[in-house]
């Protein structure tokens, strides 16, 4: 398991570095004068860009996303018990983005009327 994770990191370290670099640049950019107006309205925008980048570059299997969201519910429950409400709120936002992503990715194959 450990080797598998390690080998995945070794394989993708360039992409990871790009992601980290991009996040730093984006965070700085969205905090700079005038552009920060966008962040006033959509505070999570750097993370959203990160997430889209992850989806495109790492080609995540969408079927893992709901399971990940469910795991985060368990984590949020733990934060509630520890009274870490701020972190719990952030966890809720991540769950929301995860589930929205899953639904958006599932839409093309959806057939409601049949």
């Amino acid at each position, binding site marked *: 398991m450990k080797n598998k994770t390690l080998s995945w990191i070794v394989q993708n370290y360039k992409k990871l570095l790009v992601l980290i670099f991009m996040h730093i640049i984006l965070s700085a950019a969205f905090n700079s004068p005038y552009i920060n107006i966008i962040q006033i309205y959509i505070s*999570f925008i750097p993370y959203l860009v990160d997430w889209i980048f992850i989806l495109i570059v790492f080609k995540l299997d969408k079927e893992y996303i709901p399971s990940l969201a469910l795991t985060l519910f368990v984590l949020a*429950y733990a934060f509630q018990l520890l009274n870490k409400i701020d972190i719990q709120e952030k966890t809720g*936002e991540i769950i929301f983005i995860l589930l929205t992503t899953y639904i958006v990715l599932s839409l093309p194959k959806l057939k409601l009327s049949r």
Partner: protein
Amino acid sequence: MIKHIKKYIFDLLILCFLGLIPLLWFRGDEVILGHDAGLTLEPISHFYDRLFAWTDRFAFGTDQTYAIPGFFIHGLEALISSLGLSLQKMQQVIFIFWLILPGLCMYYFAIQIAKKYKLRYFALPASLFYMLNHFLLQGWFVAERTKFSLYAALPLLLAFVFAWTEKKRSTFLTGFYISFLFFLLNGEASLPLFGSVILTMATFTFFYFFEERSFSKFFQLAKLAGLTLVISCILNAYWLLPFGYYVLGSYSKEVAQAGGLLGILGWVNYISEKSSLINLFRLQGIPEWYQNPLHPYANIFLHNPFFITVSFLIPFTAFLSLVVLKKHPARSVAIFFAFLALISMFFMAGSHPPFGAIYLLFVKFIPGFIAFRTPYYKFASSLWLAYAVLIGLTVNVILEYLKKKNHIFFFITSLFLIISFLAYNYPFLNGVFFDYIQGQRTNRVSVPTYVYEFGKWSGSQKRINTKTLSLPPPNNEFKVDSYKWGYWSLAPATSLLTNAPIISSSTYASSDQGDLINLLYKKMESNDSQWPKLAKFLGIKSFLLKKDFAWNLKDSPTAPPSAYEPALHRNDLKLIKKFGEWEVYDFTSLDKVTPITNAHSMDVVMGNVKAMDLISSLPAFDAKSLIYFATDIKKLDSSLVPYFQRVYSKPDCINCDLQYSYSYYNTSTPLLTPKSKLYPLIIIKRIWDEKHLGKEPVSVLNYYLTRSMQDLLIYQKLGTMREKGIYTQRSLVNYNYSLSRINPIINKLVPSFDNIKLIEMNNVFRTEKLILDGEKNNLDADTKQFLLQSLSQLNNINMTFEKYVWQTTDEEHKKYLVTIPKDDWYRISYSNHVKNEVADTLNFTLNEKEYSMPTSSSANHTSEDTKDKIYLKRGTFKMQLNQQITNLVNNSAELNIDNMHCYNSSQIKLNKNDVYRVTFFHQANKSTKLDVAFIIDNKIKTSEFEKINSDLKWQKYSKDYVTDLPKKILSLKICGNPVDKLTTNTVKDLELRIISKPDVLFYTDRSVNDHLLPVSSDKINQTLYSVNTPIKHNNKLFLLNESFSQYWNIENGNSTHFIANGYANGWLHSDPISKPLIIQYKIQRLVEAGFTITGIGVFSTFLYIGWRKRKKHEK
């Protein structure tokens, strides 16, 4: 059919069994009443009243077009009552109906899904979850039937459109079904309650087109939407016609009532405080749970580990369906409802991060979105619907799996789920949710028998039109009607009891009506000898003294019932009936009160209805007067002027309380300052603006005033950013430039401005001076030079204004603007409540000419001699009244205050809205602090002391105190600094004064024999009167003693409609009257037309469907 029912009988029995829960909610003879419940004590007469667009139940009558869509909700209650059931039994039946209905509707929808995807254990869990949950619980405390109706309609709507997409039902039938659904379950046509319906349909449309985007699909959907719209318009014509007509003219009024856009944004923030996404996932974040510390059950759900665990299990179970249904055909359903859940959460979160700013943009910029100012409640139904389906899907998978594997586990799990579900919804089982402030307030009340008896009696033919004043009044701020037996609501209990006009200063009274009613209350409380005249002037014949009124509530105190007893124990009043704690007094000497009266002439009052305080105190005041109120001499209706006889002019004391207003001239702090790289854009815009400004002086003045304020706000912003140098100088240079443009225009324009405009502009310049002074000490020497230039220019402008503006600037010289509409001889009346003073002679100046006149209290009113009068011509006069200042604390000697000794003034009785000013000189033997505080009701906190610097130099201290809260006692405390042991402070010339606002009234007291006379008329119903001919007195002025509304109309002939007596409908009917005059509330005609269209629509639609079915059957 029976076979079908047999298949689902077990599920239906469980739903119906749980639907009987409301039987557990009532203890003894309790009924649900109060708060926002809208449940009435007399359902049948209440329903009958709601068939009309006008009701007499509130104040002097009010529009109730909004209530007509409640036809089915209130009709059902009236129908059940008509079966002879008691009020409690009727409520039990109704509650069972509204509790079961969402469950049954959901069950119908769930069965469609279950049949399609072969889900054995889906329908019942989904329906139960939809039927009993915390969202509904929050609505149940006020039995919110409007919400329940749309909540129940939502799954049926989806069932219809899903069946339509699967081509199980034709477009016409689907359109008819949807229309008929919202015809019956219409949420009383409250647009915000449709939030979830709109979201659900938007989600459906999105998915509908996502599957396949083709013209034929678009055409099909457009056809369905068009058909639904047409059929809905026909079926709902009974309320659409009147309501649409009324709402078209009231959108801006509604916004203003909600506190304007800013008020609404503030409210959205307040409601959304706890609606974080994680709370919404857990189906929590209900605002009331966090705002009410005495909420009957919220604290348990927020803090108990079991309930916290369940709250996390709910979203886990719901979204588990996405995992467990990966390869199941019902996966599409799970995705649809998961999407609906997420989109609902987005809107329910309101202004809460992370999407809150987007929601606020919607509120600001999407027309009509302002209606969704309580986002949580308005979009929640679709979230609960989505969760019900998602949880149903997961539970189905789990139970099907267990059923296959192990029957015992299946049974145990089912039992566990049922027990957990009931435990999580335990407040449903005992009705505790009705006790909305635990231990203090509940909607479960036992109504005393005498209340019902009064209701019956007042609704009798003899009393139904008798205007009765309710005593004591509700609290002036919160307008709460509350009784010792438990009723608490903003809706007066009498309005739920009888259709008779029982008047109180409730929220339903307009501002002017409220002022008049409060004036009567005030005069009755003080037993002013003139109060019966005012009551008769308002058409009030009777008085209801409610001795069980909860007058001493902590948050809404009012006068006790006993305060009105002296006023009621008069010779011309008689106790005519006693109902337990309720007593009814009638005037004995009053002529028969007719709804319509007429007169040959009328009196005119220059001022607002508050002038009636002085007018009704005049010995010559005639209760049968017809009075026209006007505030602007230029706007007087010329057709009415010839009918003016007596004149009253009540000038306002301008800024008498010396509480100056400040104005930013609708300017907000600019985003860009001279420090910004983008500031040149502002410069370019200003150059462009100046080029296109034109030469019209008022627009030029407005432009430079706005610009000057912008520059000063930049100057202030830079100050807070601790900028001192070049940028601050630049903002001052820009400001000086604007002032240099303003100065010459002001000199030209100011003489032509009216006093209101002058005061408004003076307030702007006062604000600018304040901003300039505020940053004075933080500037460097160079910048100060620019500041001095600004101050010098500003002083010049202020000097120009001082020449023209007419307003009080000190405590001794009170200034008024007296408007005289007609040349005549005038007397003067004066009153000053601060000193309880009724002066015999008054010295004043009018347009700088000095006068000394006897006031109304000393003048000989029978004399026609003009020596007690003053002849004034039509026009506006500047009046100045000199007042003596009275010091409320007697301290001529110097006071020595050290760290051990404080000075405490004597206690003064506090009057609401009066301004109290303290002034003194102080010094100390070394630099120290002096603590000064106003003490209210003998309570003071250390933090409330103001610390003022004191040193060897004598300094003047001045401070004002004003309260609009009902406080009782005021005193002053001055203490030395407790730390400075060797310091002695000296205080001298200590004064505590009330800044008085004396009332003055100019009036003609010529004797006029003309007054209102009764007119023979028939009240056909509350919206229709017929004046019989021939009219005995050939007078042209008519008065209908109902609240003024533009929709009241004399049907035949030409007439001028005006507000009479400050609140009622007056007409000048100049045409000869040969046939009976019909006075009608116009909207009622639309109600009648609407009901006719609806009736025909329902009948013909059913006929058409029957014909189609028959034709299909024949084929």
